[in-house]
């Protein structure tokens, strides 16, 4: 399928933007910038999707990722000690191995892309991508779509439980303990050998 020249020009620009900002994610000191670089990478890919006629997916990418990266940035601020990047910062492990692994993955996938033969069958001219997606979601693949919905709901509940301050038997940071079976007795349902003390608190 042949695209007009202007589309190719845009594609080259967007591809460069996507890769450069994707790389800057791991090369910037500021954690907030890192999350927004990732957002830029996603937006560039989203625009490429729109160029590919996937109009719904491209636009959905914008708002999904905007919200997601906003939350990500807030978490960065909360958990990182250098969120603003005022100090140089490099928190990596197995660095050389990771670079090699990343390069290897790229090379393998690139080889596949270059050498494999893919059928050349572009979109039919009369296809309405948005309507086709909608028909699929609420037609043949409804089960998959609804399962995804259920999984998301389960995730929400699980996440709230995991991150909630209140445990079943009291606040998490105070060491929630089940009550005894008899008044004043040992906590119920705790293994005998579980000795309270240093075992849990590893500050690396």
């Amino acid at each position, binding site marked *: 399928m042949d695209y007009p020249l202007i589309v190719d020009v845009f594609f080259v620009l967007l591809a460069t933007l996507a*890769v450069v900002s994707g790389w800057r994610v*791991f090369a910037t000191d500021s954690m907030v910038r890192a999350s927004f670089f990732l957002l830029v990478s996603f937006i560039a890919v989203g625009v490429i999707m729109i160029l*590919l006629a996937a109009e719904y997916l491209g636009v959905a990418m914008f708002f999904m990722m905007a919200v997601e990266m906003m*939350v990500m940035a807030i978490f960065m601020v909360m958990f990182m000690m250098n969120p603003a990047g005022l100090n140089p910062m490099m928190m990596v492990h197995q660095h050389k191995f990771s670079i090699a692994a990343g390069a290897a993955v790229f090379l393998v996938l690139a080889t596949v892309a270059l050498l494999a033969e*893919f059928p050349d*069958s572009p979109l039919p001219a009369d296809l309405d991508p948005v309507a086709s997606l909608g028909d699929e979601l609420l037609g043949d693949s409804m089960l998959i779509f609804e399962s995804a919905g259920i999984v998301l709901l389960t*995730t929400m509940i699980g996440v709230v439980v995991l991150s909630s301050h209140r445990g079943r038997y009291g606040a998490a940071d105070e060491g929630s303990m089940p009550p005894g079976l008899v008044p004043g007795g040992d906590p119920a349902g705790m293994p005998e050998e579980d000795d309270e003390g240093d075992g849990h608190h590893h500050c690396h």
Partner: protein
Amino acid sequence: MTLVTLLLLAAALIGIGFYGALSQQSFVMLMMGLELILNGVMLAAVAFWALSGAGAPEGQLLTIVVMAVMAIEMAMGFALVVAVFRTNQADVTEGITELKH
């Protein structure tokens, strides 16, 4: 913009994401690596759908599913970070040597 160039772009994004996921100590940065991998996967899926799959609707569906996976990954990741941070006061991957409390 051909299928090969699109796939090369996807491969580059996946490669960078792979590097990030393996090398970063911080949980949140690690998740960013995973997201970047999924970014490449989605791009590849849409590229196949548009240029090689004759617009089969399952191509778009796959992308939607990947988006859902991303949301789940994010949510679970953050919940883990919060839980680990509560007990260990750290958000680095080495912080979880045991996950019971």
